[in-house]
C-alpha cells in the first residue's frame, strides 16, 4: 500500500520547518518530533515506506534515525 498522502504532506512540512538547522540536525529534530507526537501506527506506516519517493530527503534520514530510536526502545524523545 502506498504511503497515505496526509502522512507524506505532514512529514515533509515538519522537515521544511526544521530545514534551517542543516540536514543532519534537521533529520534528528524531525525524528524526535515524530517520536513525540505521532502515534505508533503512523510512524510504522512512514517507516515502511521511506522509499515512497515523495518524501523529503530529510524525512528519509529522519526515518532511519527514528528506526534506531524505536529499536533502542526509548520512549523519552525530548
Amino acid at each position, binding site marked *: 500500500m502506498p504511503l*497515505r498522502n*496526509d*502522512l507524506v*504532506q*505532514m512529514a515533509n*512540512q*515538519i522537515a*521544511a*520547518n526544521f*530545514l*534551517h538547522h542543516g540536514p543532519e540536525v534537521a533529520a534528528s529534530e524531525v525524528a524526535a*518530533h515524530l517520536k*513525540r*507526537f*505521532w*502515534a*505508533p*501506527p*503512523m510512524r510504522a506506516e512512514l517507516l515502511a515506506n521511506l522509499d515512497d519517493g515523495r518524501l523529503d530527503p530529510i524525512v528519509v534520514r529522519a526515518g532511519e534515525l527514528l528506526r534506531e530510536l524505536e529499536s533502542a526502545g526509548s*520512549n*523519552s*524523545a525530548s
Partner: protein
Amino acid sequence: MPLVKERDLGTRAVSGSPSVELEIDGMAVAVPEGTSVMRAAALAGIGVPKLCATDSLAAFGSCRLCLVEIEGVRGTPASCTTPVAPGMKVSTQTPRLERLRRNVMELYISDHPLDCLTCAANGDCELQDMAGAVGLREVRYGQAGQSHLGEVKDTTNPYFAFDPAKCIVCSRCVRACEETQGTFALTITGRGFGSRVAPGPAGNFFDSECVSCGACVQACPTDALEEKSVIDMGVPDRSVLTTCAYCGVGCSFRAELRGDEVVRMVPSKSGQANEGHSCVKGRFAWGYATHRERVVKPMIREAITDPWREVSWEEAIGYAGSRLREIQATYGVASIGGITSSRCTNEEVFVVQKMVRAAFGNNNVDTCARVCHSPTGFGLSQTFGTSAGTQDFASVAEADVIMVVGANPSEAHPVFASRMKRRLREGARLVVVDPRRIDLVRAPHIEASHHLQLQPGSNVALINAMAHVVVTEGLVDRDFVSERCEMDDFAVWEKFISTDINSPEATEPITGVPAGEVRAAARLYAGAPNAAIYYGLGVTEHSQGSTMVMGLANLAMATGNIGRVGVGVNPLRGQNNVQGSCDMGSFPHEFSGYRHVSDDTVRHVFEELWGRTLDPEPGLRIPNMFDAAIEGTFRALFVQGEDIAQSDPNVNHVKAALESLELCIVQDLFLNETASFAHVFLPGTSFLEKDGTFTNAERRINRVRPVMAPRNGKQEWQVVCELSSAMGYPMQYDNASRIMDEIAATTPTFAGVSFRKLDELGSLQWPCNEAAPLGTPTMHVGTFVRGKGRFLETPFVPTEERASRRYPLILTTGRILTQYNVGAQTRRTGNVAWHPEDVLEIHPHDAEDRGISDGDWVTVTSRVGQTELRCRLSPRVPVGVVYTTFHHPVSGANVVTTEHSDWATNCPEYKVTAVEVRALRAPASALHRGA
C-alpha cells in the same frame, strides 16, 4: 439560594491602604485616599440616598439626592463627588438634609408614573427604594402638566425594552455604555425638562451602535431599561452564582430565577474575570438551554440511515459499551478513540480522557482545541515552559503599548475588549496586526497607532521583521535576556533574526506591509515601559501557527516584556473551556498538566491511582483519526459536545470519515450535524445544569454551579463513568468535587485546587499549589516555568495553500459578537436578529472586477469544495482577501477550507484558503433557505 443582591457602594473602589480617617454620623471610618464620602459611609454601613451614582461608574453628581453636611463646610455637598479628607466630620441625616432630599424626590416622582404595583420593576427599583428612604409621603405637583408619561416604548432590542416614561435622566445608562462597555451608543439629547436618552441618530436601540451588552440595563435604577424576561416573568426570587459557558473570558453571573425558570442572567461584580460586565451572549442568549429541539432521552440506531429509537439510559450505555469492546476485539485496541469538548467542564473532560486512557486502553484522545489553540500549547511550552497565557485580564490596565495580533476581541472576547478599550482611552498605544480592519483599529475615542494589514499567511515573516528591527536597532533588553534566558539559544536566534532576509524591507513583498510601518511598530513596542501581546486564532490557525507563537514569545523575551503586570503574551481562547480542556490531559501525547505520556514517573502516578497499565506512546490526533477512519483502521469514536462535522475543515472529508465508522457516539444537547453520523446519542447537560469548573483564558478556574436539575436526568460525567464501567473499567465519583480532588492529586499545577477553596475565594488561577496557595495571576515572575526562557529560530516557510490564477483570492474566517462558534446555541436564541446568515465580505474592487454588487449571492470555490453565500462589499478587507464567519451550517464555510494544517500540531489552516468568488444569478440553495 435566596436572591442575592450585590451591594452598591455608590462610587468606585480606590486602591491603596485605608490611610484617611474621618467620622461619619459619629462613627470612625478609615478608607484609602480618593474615596468618596458616599463610599466611605457605605463601607461603614451607612446608606446615603442616591440615584445617579452607582459603584461601577465614575461619580456624576447630577441628582442631588446624596447631599450631606460636613463640619466646617458651607452648604450641602454631594457625597458621591466629595472625596474624604482626614478628620472630616460628616452628617448624613439631619432635618435640613431630609427636607432637601424629599424636595428632590418629589420633583422626580411628579414626572413618573405612579403605577408601582403593576410595574415590572416593583421591588427591584431604586427610585421606589429612595422614595421610601427619604420618607416621601406626598407629591405636591400634579401630573396634569407637561410630562414624559405618554412617550412610546422602544422594544426593538430582542432582550430589553426602553420606556422613556420611566426614565429619570440620571445618565447612568449613557455612562455605562461609555465607561463600562466603551461603545458610546447613547446620548442625552435636549436640555432641562426636555432632556432624554437617545440611542444615537438611529432613534431606536436595534438600529443604533448598541451591541446589546446589557450594561445600561444593569445600571438603570428604574424600569426605564428593563429585561423583557423580567417584564414577562416578574422579578426573580432566588439566584445562583455561576459562569458563562460561551467564550474564554469566563464571566461570572448570578442566574436569577423564579422557581425553576431562569428570569435573567446578571453579571456579577465579584467575578474577577468580568467585574460586573457582560456581553450579549452570556447576558441574554441562554434560552437555548430550554429550547424545544433539545434532546433529553438517550437514543440508538443500528445504521445511520435508520430512524432514531429512544431507549433507557441502561440500554444506550450497555449498547455503546459492548459495541466498543466488539470493535476493539475485531480491529485492535487502538481502533477506537474519543474527542473531548472545550464547552464541557474540567471534570467532564477529565473523565473522558481517563475513560480513553484507562478503559479504551490507548491514547486516542484529542480535543477540539486541536483546531484552535494547539499551537499555543506547543509554542509557549517550547519557549516559556508552559502552555498558557502569562497574565490576568486586569494586567491590561497597566500596559502602555498593546499589540493585538490575529484577534478581534470586540467580537470574540467582548468583555475583555471593554477592559482593553478603557486602557486605550486612557492613552495606551495600540498596534493591530490583522489582514482585516477590525473594530479596534478605529473605535470611539480609540485609534490604532499602527495597523499592520498583512497578507493572510505571512504572520511569521512579519513578526520576524519586527524582531529584526529590535535586534538590529539595539532595542534588545540585554539585562533581561542575560539574566532570564538561555544565552546560547539567544545567540543563535540573534544571528538568525539579524540576517537581511528577515528585514522589514525584505519581507515587505511577502507581508504587503510597508517596511516603515513595521519599523515604527517595532520601535513602539520595544520602547514601551510595558508592552503586552494579545493574540487569537489569526495566529494559530496557520500552517506556521506554532512558529508564530514562538515568534511572539521571542519578541516579548527580547524586549523584556514578560514576568510582571502590564506585559506578557496572551492567547485569547475561543470557547469557554479551551484552556481547561487542554489542561485536563485531552491531548493524545499528554496527561493533565501537559506532561508527556512517555514520562515514566508521571505515567506511574496515574497507573497506580487508576489501576491500569497505560500506553506510553502518543495516540491519534483528530485529523489523524479521520484519515485512519477512511483508511479503515479507526472504527469507533466517542464525541463529547463538539460538532466536528461542521466546525472542522474540509467537512466533506470529515463526513466521509464519520460515515465510514462502525460506531459513533455523540454526547450533546442537540442533534447536530455530527449526530447525523451517530449510532448512539447520549443527551448532555446545558451549563445551567452542570456542576463543575471552567478555566478561562487567564488560567482562572471558576465554579459552574447547577441552577436547575439536569433535564436529561444525569450529569455528563456520570454518563461517561457508566460507559466506562460498562466496558469493564468501573469509574465512580460521589460528585464533581471528587473529580477535582483527583485532578489535584495527580496534577502538580492544580494541587491546591478544590471546590471548597473555589467557593471560599471565588476563583483561582493555576498554578495553585503549595508554592502558590492562592494561585498565580502573573506567570514567569523572576524565572520562567522551564527555568530559563528559550529563544527559537522561526524561519518563514510559506504555506502550500497559495493564490493562483484559478483561485486568486484568499479566504479567511472569523467570528461575530452575537454568534458563537458553529452557532448551535446562539442560533436558538434571539441573537439571530443580528446575524441571520453568514455573509462574505469582499473588497469593492474585487467585487467590481467580478460584476458583483452588495447583497448578491455568490459562489465561493476552493480546491476542495464550493459553497454559496450572500456577499457584502466592505473596505474592511484588503484587495485580494475575502472574509466570512462560520456560524450557520447552511453556509458551509468549512466546505471550502482545506486540510492544510500547522506543521507541529495539525491545527487546521482556517485562515488561508485560496478561492474564487463568482456572482450567482440564481442561488439554488437560496430557495430552501427562504432567501
